[in-house]
């Protein structure tokens, strides 16, 4: 029962004062702690102590001659109110932190319920701010912050090759280079390679084209992943002949094989060859991105061209040895690359690029996410300013209540705590509503977000996000509550009780602060408006970019002919020819063509480039690089591309005719800035002298092509990317390099997708096992290529609109409040003959003055922040005066409206009524 005696505290080396302070704080703390956890014991002790006193008093009275009943009565009288005494003892102990908090909470809840209007507006403002912040943080957390779902993923490194002197800053690696890097490095536990591939899976219900990856066997252990079912292939599967094994994705397994566990060991037909299914990977495995449905080993027959140093198509992933850094690894691999560059002619100029895997996956989307995170931060700031302003206004209304409480003895810290409880409750309420908003955002994200955003499927409101929201809510509650709470409790009881609250200094300070808050809100919202304006302008400019072809009424699709059935070039060429002929013969199709690389599609293929009669560079590393495409004669007319000079290919450009080429303007500009390229001889290969060194045995002379035409640039990689140099050759003349994978395009009379079925039937008629993939209208591809920009723009626009709305509500609230405070003055003015118009001008004038200051500040802020947007802009300067002026004007207009309404209402006040009231 006895309270614990305080342990002796020995604090040496401190001044006596510090010691005393320390002991004081300690005893105080222990006292409170005991009170908190032994609440009942403490209460019992208090009861016993007071009872003892009471009884002792009674005894005293009895001893002095009173009878017992009278003694008890007297003692009671002397004692006064027992409960009140106990309360005061509790107060003196200062132990009632929990109790008073609960009391504060109840009180705050009552207060909020009684002011439903205020509570609704404030909670909605916070909910908006918290909602967008929670939603966006959940994205940032999932995409940028959370480690990839592979154990030890921070040590996974993506490795690329580069040939800077050839104009190739970054590309995949060749198989021999990969083997050299893997064998000779000292910094990696292991390396693996992979590449993208399209498979046609033929089941009894027909062919289907699916996306997959080919892996070296080591990749599985580098990623440290396990199959859901069965096993993963090992290095023996990289031997040619033992390579026909496949691992399915869970999705494919469920979709095509009904989730049957007996699928392991089953034979499936992939690219017309028989593969054995050995395993199934769980749906969570999405390396390096979503979409892959099947994995097979990388394996080539001896002497295969793909396995030479001239094909750079592999992505390399390495796992760093523990404790080593990226720069150490880069130094290590660079040494190997330099050696290769010196010793192997085909690898001349080879360099290596290293990036952390996570970084390489999210690199493209990080700037946009950071931009949006900044924007939602602004929205939250504005929401806080808004609520703070509302609280200040409310403080004036509550002045009387607070004054009475002070007069009754409430201390200032106690009042501040109570008001803060109210703010925190409000923030909590807002956060709760905001979570609903964020939940909707996250649920809608897969629908709203453009395809191909990395890791977007991992976004969820997980515990980390919820903790973030909780922390933010507390921060927000303090941010908008602390100052108003402190400010509104600086009370001069005497003055206030006299009823002259309106003219107090506190009131004036409050007014100034509210104006400052509104100015800040206006300036922040202007920054966001300018930002989204810049993005909108960029999209407008992008819309004006001429892609070099007519994207409307164009059906596009991909066909990948399996090696097993189409090994000879002439078989491929025949298929291509029959396919385009069949397509062109469809009713409603005016032209059809094929290409190995479709704009906004894919199929990059870079090659060396030389011109007959030009000086020969000293080494291969200085030979320029161009993009190489094989096309059919009608390709350009189907695309609606423009021929600038010369002619297009014709059916006459056959395999035995003189070899011809068409170049785009980018090539003409670069290599014939002043001459006519027509009739010139070019080669998509290194110059003859260098080639002879490379292939001393098999060299049969250089295959010169004659330039017969120049076409306008086609934007290959997107409207925001400059046109690449491109060289086109006819499919029929491509020889051994004839590509089995190509795109078909058909110009249609009506909606392209209405021709989808007819087109599929044309292909099936040629080969009933041949699937068609990625069928889309060109307009769709164009829209997809802009989808990320549009998404960023939409979100930023949405945030800017929220910011604007909040700022205007803030301005409106301030003006409405000011007008109500000046009701008396307005009444007098009206009585003295002021016209409603004068009063209106007064209100709008004040609102506009505040808005103008905010706009001016905002313009300065926008001008200095807009540079951060540069990476998101397209042909728009961060500082675009007309845009800034337009946004400023727009804001002023809205500001005028927001202050006009309260002004109008004030001007309709009946002067007699107002004056009578006071």
């Amino acid at each position, binding site marked *: *029962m*006895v*309270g614990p*005696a*305080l342990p002796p505290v020995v604090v040496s080396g401190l001044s006596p004062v510090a010691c*005393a302070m320390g*002991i*004081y704080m300690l*005893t*105080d703390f222990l*006292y409170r702690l005991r009170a908190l956890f032994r609440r009942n014991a403490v209460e019992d*002790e208090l009861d*016993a*102590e*007071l009872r*003892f*006193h009471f*009884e*002792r*008093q009674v*005894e*005293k009275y009895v001893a002095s001659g009173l009878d017992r009943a009278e003694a008890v009565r007297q003692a009671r009288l*002397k*004692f*006064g*109110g027992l409960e*009140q*005494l106990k309360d*005061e*003892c509790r*107060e*003196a*102990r*200062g132990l009632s932190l929990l109790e008073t908090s609960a009391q504060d909470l109840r009180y705050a809840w009552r207060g909020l319920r009684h002011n439903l209007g205020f509570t609704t507006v404030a909670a909605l403002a916070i909910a908006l701010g918290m909602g967008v912040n929670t939603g966006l943080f959940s994205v940032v957390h999932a995409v940028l912050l959370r480690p990839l779902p592979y154990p030890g993923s921070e040590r996974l490194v993506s490795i690329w090759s580069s040939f800077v002197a050839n104009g190739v800053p970054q590309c995949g690696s060749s198989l021999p280079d990969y083997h050299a890097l893997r064998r000779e490095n000292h910094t990696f536990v292991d390396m693996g390679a992979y590449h993208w591939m399209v498979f046609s899976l033929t089941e009894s219900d027909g062919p289907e084209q699916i996306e997959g990856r080919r892996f070296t066997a080591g990749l599985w252990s580098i990623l440290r992943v396990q199959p859901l079912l069965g096993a993963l292939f090992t290095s023996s599967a990289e031997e040619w002949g033992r390579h026909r094994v496949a691992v399915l994705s869970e999705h494919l397994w469920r979709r095509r094989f009904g989730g049957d566990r007996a699928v392991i060991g089953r034979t499936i037909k992939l690219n017309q060859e028989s593969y054995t299914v050995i395993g199934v990977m769980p749906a969570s495995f999405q390396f390096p991105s979503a979409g892959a449905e099947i994995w097979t080993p990388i394996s080539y027959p001896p002497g295969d061209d793909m396995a030479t140093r001239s094909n750079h198509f592999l992505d390399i992933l390495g796992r760093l040895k523990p404790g080593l850094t990226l720069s150490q690894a880069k130094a290590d691999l660079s040494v190997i690359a330099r050696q290769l560059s010196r010793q192997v002619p085909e690898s001349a100029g080879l360099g290596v690029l290293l990036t952390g895997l996570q970084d390489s996956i999210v690199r493209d989307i990080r700037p946009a996410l950071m931009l949006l995170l900044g924007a939602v931060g602004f929205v939250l700031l504005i929401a806080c300013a808004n609520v703070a302003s509302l609280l200040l206004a409310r403080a004036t209304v509550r002045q009387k209540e607070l004054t009475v409480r002070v007069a009754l003895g409430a201390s200032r810290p106690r009042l501040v705590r109570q008001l803060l409880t109210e703010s925190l409750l409000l923030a909590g309420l807002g956060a709760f509503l905001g979570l609903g908003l964020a939940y909707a955002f996250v649920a809608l994200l897969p629908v709203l977000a453009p395809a191909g955003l990395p890791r977007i499927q991992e976004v969820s409101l997980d515990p980390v996000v919820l903790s973030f929201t909780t922390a933010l809510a507390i921060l927000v509650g303090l941010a908008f509550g602390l100052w108003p709470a402190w400010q509104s409790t600086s009370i001069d009881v005497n003055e206030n009780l006299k009823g002259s609250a309106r003219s107090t200094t506190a009131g004036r300070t409050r007014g100034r602060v509210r104006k400052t808050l509104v100015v800040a809100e206006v300036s922040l919202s202007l920054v966001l408006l300018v930002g989204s304006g810049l993005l909108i302008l960029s999209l407008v400019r992008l819309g004006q970019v001429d892609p070099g072809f007519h994207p409307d009424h164009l059906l596009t699709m991909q066909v990948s002919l399996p090696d097993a059935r189409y090994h000879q070039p002439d078989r491929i060429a025949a298929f291509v020819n029959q396919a385009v002929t069949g397509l062109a013969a469809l009713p409603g199709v005016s032209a059809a063509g094929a290409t190995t690389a479709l704009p906004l599609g894919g199929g990059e293929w870079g090659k060396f480039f030389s011109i007959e009669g030009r000086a020969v560079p000293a080494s291969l590393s200085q030979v320029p690089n161009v993009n190489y495409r094989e096309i059919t004669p009608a390709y350009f007319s189907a695309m609606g591309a423009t021929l600038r000079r010369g002619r297009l290919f014709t059916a006459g450009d056959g395999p035995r005719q003189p070899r011809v080429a068409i170049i785009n303007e980018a090539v003409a500009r670069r290599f014939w800035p002043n001459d006519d390229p027509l009739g010139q001889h070019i080669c998509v290969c290194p110059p003859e002298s260098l080639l002879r060194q490379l292939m001393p045995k098999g060299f049969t002379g250089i295959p010169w092509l004659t330039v017969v035409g120049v076409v306008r640039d086609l934007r290959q990689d997107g409207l925001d990317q400059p046109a690449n140099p491109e060289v086109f050759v006819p499919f029929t003349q491509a020889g051994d390099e004839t590509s089995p994978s190509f795109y078909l395009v058909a110009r249609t009379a009506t909606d392209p997708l209405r021709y989808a079925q007819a087109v599929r039937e044309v292909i099936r008629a040629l080969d009933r096992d041949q699937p068609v993939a990625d069928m889309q209208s060109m307009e769709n591809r164009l829209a997809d290529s802009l989808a990320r920009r549009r998404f960023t723009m939409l979100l930023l626009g949405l945030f800017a609109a929220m910011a604007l709305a909040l700022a205007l509500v803030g301005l409106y609230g301030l003006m409405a409040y000011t007008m109500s405070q000046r009701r008396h003055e307005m009444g007098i003015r009206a009585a003295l003959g002021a016209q409603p118009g004068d009063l209106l001008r007064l209100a709008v004038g004040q609102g506009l003055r505040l808005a103008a200051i905010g706009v001016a500040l905002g313009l300065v802020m926008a001008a200095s922040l807009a540079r951060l947007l540069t990476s998101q802009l397209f042909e728009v300067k961060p500082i675009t005066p007309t845009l800034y002026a337009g946004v400023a004007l727009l804001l002023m207009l809205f500001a005028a409206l927001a202050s006009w309404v309260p002004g109008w209402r004030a001007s309709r006040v009946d002067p007699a009524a107002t004056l009578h009231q006071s």
Partner: protein
Amino acid sequence: MADERIDLPQGTLDLLILKTLALEPQHGWAISERIEQISSSVLQVQQGSLYPALHRLERRGWIKAHWGVSENNRRAKYYALTRAGRKQLEADTGAWRKLSTAIAQVLDMA
């Protein structure tokens, strides 16, 4: 006699409690009795002030409480002065002497 009783000026109750406890540890009732006795019943200590004051002083670490047995053989809560309390008593006594002397001087002005 009732006329001669005066309420304690604010803040002086703490000082009187500390002084009372400087002699020996006491329980609450005895403290109030002692103060009344010594002041010849001029100073009246209300329970409503005494107990909150005791709890306040305990919280500040100037006194500490323990349960003991009272003069009439019952459990009672005894308070004793701590070292910090003794220092505080000295400081407060000095301050009070100064104050009362000063006030006396002013009042004694001719």
